[in-house]
């Protein structure tokens, strides 16, 4: 029986990759541990090793093929007990042929996988009022947009530097700092030991000493070890010093649930930090906001917690080709206009809200979608204005329900928008449990667009 070699998943969030290079050809005998191929993901280039001994009988996906879905059969081999197909052994096909035959096969196989796994395409965005009409756009992933924001600010300001685990030589655990070491050198792109509490304090201290540090946490889950420095040192110093001591530091990194990484690595800290006076808390959804807001975060003299999302890193969006594209902090954005109901969200929830809104449009419900973008200070005016227009609101949040941003928005509507309400404000959040590992349980615990649709119908009495 032939052994099928499948496109491997090389990270928890990988859905597809490029088969960059084959190191073996048909007819080659391999033993366990031999490097068969090189596979590129948006995060890294990895080597693909043989697990079994045997002979490669067929190469089904040629090198250089992009977008090969995880699970696609990329080659076949005969196990050590069986003879390789004599045909193949005598006359290995030329690589040109392989390419021609393999590519469509691979694409066909991959299709259903991609359909299921691909993130929802960004849809129906209202034009961003901060971008002048006629501005040309470039498609960038969120990851690239974040990197560009840092690079642009580092070029402008010598005091800006990046520190964190694996930010330099490794090029970033999630490749967000890729290329920065090469451009700016080891003085400004600094690998730290695994020591969050210590380097968060060093970052805050360096900011007090007049620098503008960008402190990357590999994920915000690890920043809990450093939260004392973020809150007690960075956030409170300006106030406690009567305004004479600044702490212009940016703490950034992925936040929220990733994919199948279990409870300790899957948590949304937005509400935690957003409850602290003295901090700016930003949680962008798309690449343009990621860039414009990270630049703003680096520029501001206030300390910023900048919450990214690992699942969004690889998604591409249009980013305005403008010099020094910087967005205002504290301004939400109506990302889709509607008249029947408002869905308020931030970060990855915005994509789900847009998905829900599109689906609801098909049923005659026009939902307005607000991307909060900044969680502290919260843009209450935009929220209340939209409520006054639609009179119904659902808050969608990838996070726990208790003491959440959703709770805050609901309180806001009660206090300042009560007369505009035609229905109780409803929240759609993750389940109130630590995030489980099992695929089905994880799916059940996390917010999705179906739940948003259901909640919208409820507040619309439909």
């Amino acid at each position, binding site marked *: 029986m032939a052994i099928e070699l499948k496109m491997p998943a090389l990270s928890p969030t990988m859905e597809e990759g490029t088969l960059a290079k084959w190191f073996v050809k048909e007819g080659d005998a391999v033993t366990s541990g031999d490097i068969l191929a090189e596979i590129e993901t948006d995060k890294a280039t990895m080597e693909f090793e043989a697990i079994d001994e045997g002979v490669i009988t067929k190469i089904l996906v040629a090198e250089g093929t992009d977008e090969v879905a995880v699970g696609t059969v990329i080659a076949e081999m005969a196990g050590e007990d069986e003879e390789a197909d004599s045909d193949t052994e005598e006359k290995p096909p030329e690589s040109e042929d392989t390419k021609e035959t393999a590519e469509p096969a691979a694409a066909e196989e991959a299709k259903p996988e991609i359909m299921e796994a691909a993130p929802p395409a960004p849809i129906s965005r209202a034009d961003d009022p901060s971008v002048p009409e006629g501005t040309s756009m470039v498609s960038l992933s969120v990851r690239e947009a974040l990197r560009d924001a840092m690079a642009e600010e580092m070029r402008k300001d010598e005091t800006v530097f990046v520190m964190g685990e694996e930010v330099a*030589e490794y090029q970033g655990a999630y490749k967000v700092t890729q290329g920065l070491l090469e451009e700016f050198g080891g003085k400004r792109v600094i690998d730290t030991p695994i020591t969050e509490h210590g380097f968060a304090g060093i970052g805050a201290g*360096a900011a007090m000493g007049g620098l503008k540090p960008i402190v990357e946490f590999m994920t915000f889950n690890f920043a809990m070890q450093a939260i004392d420095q973020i809150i007690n040192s960075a956030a409170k110093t300006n106030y406690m*010093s*009567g305004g004479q001591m600044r702490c212009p530091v940016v703490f950034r990194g992925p936040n929220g649930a990733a994919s199948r990484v279990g409870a300790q690595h899957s948590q949304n800290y937005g509400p935690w930090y957003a409850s602290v006076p003295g901090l700016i808390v930003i949680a962008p959804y798309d690449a343009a906001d990621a860039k414009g807001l990270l630049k703003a975060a680096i520029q*501001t003299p206030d300390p910023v917690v900048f919450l990214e999302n690992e699942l969004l890193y690889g998604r591409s969006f249009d980013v305005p080709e403008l010099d020094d594209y910087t967005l205002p902090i504290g301004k939400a954005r109506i990302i889709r206009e509607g008249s029947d109901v408002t869905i308020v969200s931030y970060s990855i929830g915005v994509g789900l809200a847009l998905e829900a809104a599109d689906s609801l449009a098909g049923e005659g419900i026009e939902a307005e979608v607000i991307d909060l973008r900044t969680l502290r200070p919260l843009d209450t005016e935009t929220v209340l204005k939209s409520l006054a227009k639609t009179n119904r609101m659902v808050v969608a949040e990838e996070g726990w329900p208790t003491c959440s941003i959703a709770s805050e928005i609901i309180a806001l509507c009660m206090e300042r928008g009560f007369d505009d309400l035609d229905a109780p404000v409803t929240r759609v959040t993750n389940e109130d449990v630590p995030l489980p590992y099992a695929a089905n349980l994880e799916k059940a615990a996390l917010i999705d667009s179906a739940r948003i649709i259901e909640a919208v119908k409820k507040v619309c009495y439909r």
Partner: protein
Amino acid sequence: MLSARQKKDPARVAKAPRKTAPAKKPASPKRAPAKPKPVVHSTGGLKAPIYKATKEEMLDFYEQMLLIRRFEEKAGQLYGLGLIGGFCHLYIGQEAVVTGLQTAINPGKDSVITGYRDHGHMLACGIDPNIVMAELTGRASGISKGKGGSMHMFSVEHGFYGGHGIVGAQVSLGTGLAFAHKYKEDGGVCLAYFGDGASNQGQVYESFNMAELWQLPVIFVIENNQYAMGTSVNRSSAEDQLYRRGESFRIPGVQVDGMDVLAVRGAVEEVLKDVRGGGGPVLMELKTYRYRGHSMSDPAKYRSRDEVQDVREKSDPIERLKAALLKKGVKEEDLKALDKKVRKTVMEAADFAEESPEPDLSELYTNVLVEQY
């Protein structure tokens, strides 16, 4: 502190600097080779060289220590009168530490950071006693506009970066200040003060590691006053010789008699040479003693009155320097005149702190953020 051989051969200091500046080159995957022998060697047993002070310098040290003593005594009184609230940690007994260290550095170029027992450090940094006392009483004219209090005071102008209430946090922050000195190449050194209690906090060691790894210009100053609140050093520390706490990070440490201002100054002179020369961090353990409780509300039942009395009689830093000054031929009445001058300064500070108005209620909402959003 230095070995006898080195003391006799000052040229060695220049010839054998410790390895510098690995921060520029990306970390090598291999372990860096052991660095050349440091100038400062770890030494216990209070063997610091005694600083050869001029009479004027000694008088200056005396006045500074006296100012701290009298200021703290007054703060204690004001606390008793209800004019100072919350926590108030007095520095009485430890004056030689901060005086010996602060007189050795360059104000404005070097940076200083400490924990919550910070009044003495501020006075030694040359900050106006009036605005320090007014902060203790929570008044608008306080250095933090009355919004910081005893534990949270700062003066960027004087290179004093706080004033931090969380035990040990200032060690990482101070390491960050040293990082900024090195990054800006401004030649500054950070003095990061902390107590024997903080020396058991995890982030202290995280900071030691990075400070040595990146050869940062920081002096870790452990003010070992023997008690972390109510727990004595030997009840809390597996290695109670705190000058050795940097050993596994290759940070040399020196143990100094923190009750002798000239020993403190002598020790830091050597340490500063090393750290300023790019030799990376050095740890100093200053053996000292606080006469008062941990804070004003501490009844100090964990030690006997005799113990405190014994230190006061035998090792009081001010009395010791006074004796040395008299021996040098300074007249008793000159010292009395100094005391009078200091008492006047402190009285004025207390009056200022009592008479200043409380902050305007509008101050409640200012300085939360720098910018408007």
